[in-house]
């Protein structure tokens, strides 16, 4: 009785695993080069800031500053409250709206923020930068490892 239950459980798990495996295999039909080209295209034009923020409802607070990011090169720290982006107030904004403001600024790359740190306001000038090449390489290699395992050897 117990053995039966076990086998059926194993069968179910096995079929599930097989299904997920099959899905993995069939996830990317394009050539690896094509995928790499697409990923580069998607990321190349991007400028990023390197901040992770949390919504405090209302208000936005910096959660982490990514090392070696544009944000890390200026005086921005964990716990700073964001007041405005390029003169537009973000005191009541959520993370999505903040990112949209960043996206608007991406064309010129110039950005000035007003932050509040321990009660005092501070203006920070900074530039958005493209993703570093090693980031992009990492993304591509992880994608190739994830979705092109079967064909990676055959593709250039």
């Amino acid at each position: 009785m117990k053995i039966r239950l076990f086998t059926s459980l194993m069968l179910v798990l096995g079929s599930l695993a097989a299904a997920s495996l099959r899905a993995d295999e069939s996830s990317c039909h394009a050539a690896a080069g094509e995928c790499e080209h697409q990923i580069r295209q998607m990321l190349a034009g991007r400028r990023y800031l390197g901040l992770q923020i949390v919504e405090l409802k209302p208000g936005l607070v910096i959660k982490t500053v990514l090392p070696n990011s544009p944000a890390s090169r200026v005086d921005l720290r964990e716990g700073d409250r964001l007041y405005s982006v390029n003169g537009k107030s973000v005191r009541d904004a959520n993370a999505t709206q903040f990112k949209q403001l960043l996206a608007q600024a991406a064309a010129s790359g110039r950005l000035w923020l007003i932050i509040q740190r321990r009660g005092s306001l501070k203006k920070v000038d900074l530039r958005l930068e493209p993703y570093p090449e090693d980031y992009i390489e990492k993304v591509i290699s992880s994608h190739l490892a994830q979705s092109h395992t079967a064909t990676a050897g055959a593709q250039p």
Partner: protein
Amino acid sequence: MVRRLLAKLNPISRDGERPDHVSILLPLLIISAALGVLAWRSYVLSVRMERGANTLAVQYASYAAEVTARRVDRAVQSVLSKAVEDWQQSERYAESPTFTSLREWVGSNGWIVFAIYLPDHDPASSVVVSELGTSEASKAYLTREFFTSTGTVRYKYDPSRLLAEVQPAIRQQPVIRTAPTRDTLAVEQRADVTLVQGQKRQGLARLADGFSFYSPLGAPLSSYAVRAVVRPSYGGTGWANQRVASLGVSLVALILMAIGAYLAVRGLGKEAEAMKLRGALIANVSHELRTPLAMIRLGAETLKRGSKLKEKERLDIEDQILREVLHLSHLVENVLDVARLQNRSVKALAFVPVTPYELVTSLVSTYDSWIRSKGFAVSMQIDDTIEPQMWDRDAVSRALLNLIDNAIKYSADEKAISVFVKSLADEVVIEVRDRGIGIEARELSRIFDPYYRAQFSDTQTRRGAGLGLTLVQQIVKSHEGSVEVESIPGSGSTFRMRFPRTSPEERRALSGLMTHSKPVTS
């Protein structure tokens, strides 16, 4: 001015002169002009109606295209925002979105072909899901991104697949339909709405049989447009087209008018001919009456004054007076007979058995001296075996006499007259042949008309009222026969009276009838 114009238009009433064609054509011309104005007006109206229908079609096309485009826009937006919501939903359950959740998301939105998730905390650990098939690089995929609280999603999608999702929004077509009743114009506006790609044009475009209106979709699918084609039912081709129909109707009206004008002109011509004949009657008859009267008067005056006249001269004058009186009475008889027969008053035609041979010979012998005095010789060929016919003796004699008289009158040098009486199967034919001047072919059909006299260079010198042949014809017709004429100008004419032959039985029956009815008819 107006009166003068009217007087010009109406020459008949002016002094009875022959009416000309202008007087009848001008009113018809005026009516035609009025008809033309009406036709022009109806043409203009139908053009205006067509223009109105076209305007309606244009408006309808723009309306249909615009409404559909906006509906598609809304549907696209709702699909896009639903995708965002889907993702945010999955993000809420998984603290950090993984490859699996992204793949599920892409799988549930079939129009997305490539997606990348960039987490804020570590862009280098982005996850990528690609549904790209092989060799799809050339396809025009569109890129879109949205932000979540923890990161950014960028994806590429196939616009044609996205539009396939919203296909129901295109299929719904607003339709204006007015049921055509008897009094209203049929207006059925139906737009064929389709989605087209890569159309640079925008707004109205004219087709061969309708209008199309392009209304581009809003961002992000602005390279697509909704095309609405409306084919107005009003301006058809051929006879369905109102313009053509109104032109056709006016053409028919003009043709009818032309026929009417032709008939009127022809009728006018006949009327003019009748008037001419009436005038000829007056001229002929008065001339014919005056000449013998003048002769008689002259003779009588000479007799009264001239006591010294010789016996011979006096006899000549008396003969002359007698001849003229006879002529006069002959003329008056003719006129009266014609009038009587023409009015179809049942003239006391007394049908009695008559032997043709006896009738002709007695007539010729009676007038023999007169014929000889004119220098003519009569030769006769008479079938004497013909049984008696039911004829009016006086009338047939008069007809024959008229023919002989004509032969004498219209002969020139060769003075010879032949009279034939022939018997055919069911006809008795009396024929008078002369070697006279003959009759022109174009006049042959008219010589039997009353008061008509064939035109010769010397018509005026030959006496006559133009009644002789009319009388002949009427007499023969009243015997249910017919008159024929053959003539060669310059070498003579042949007149032939054809009487239906009466059989002995008929003759008996008729004679019985006649003896009974004679007291009534006489």
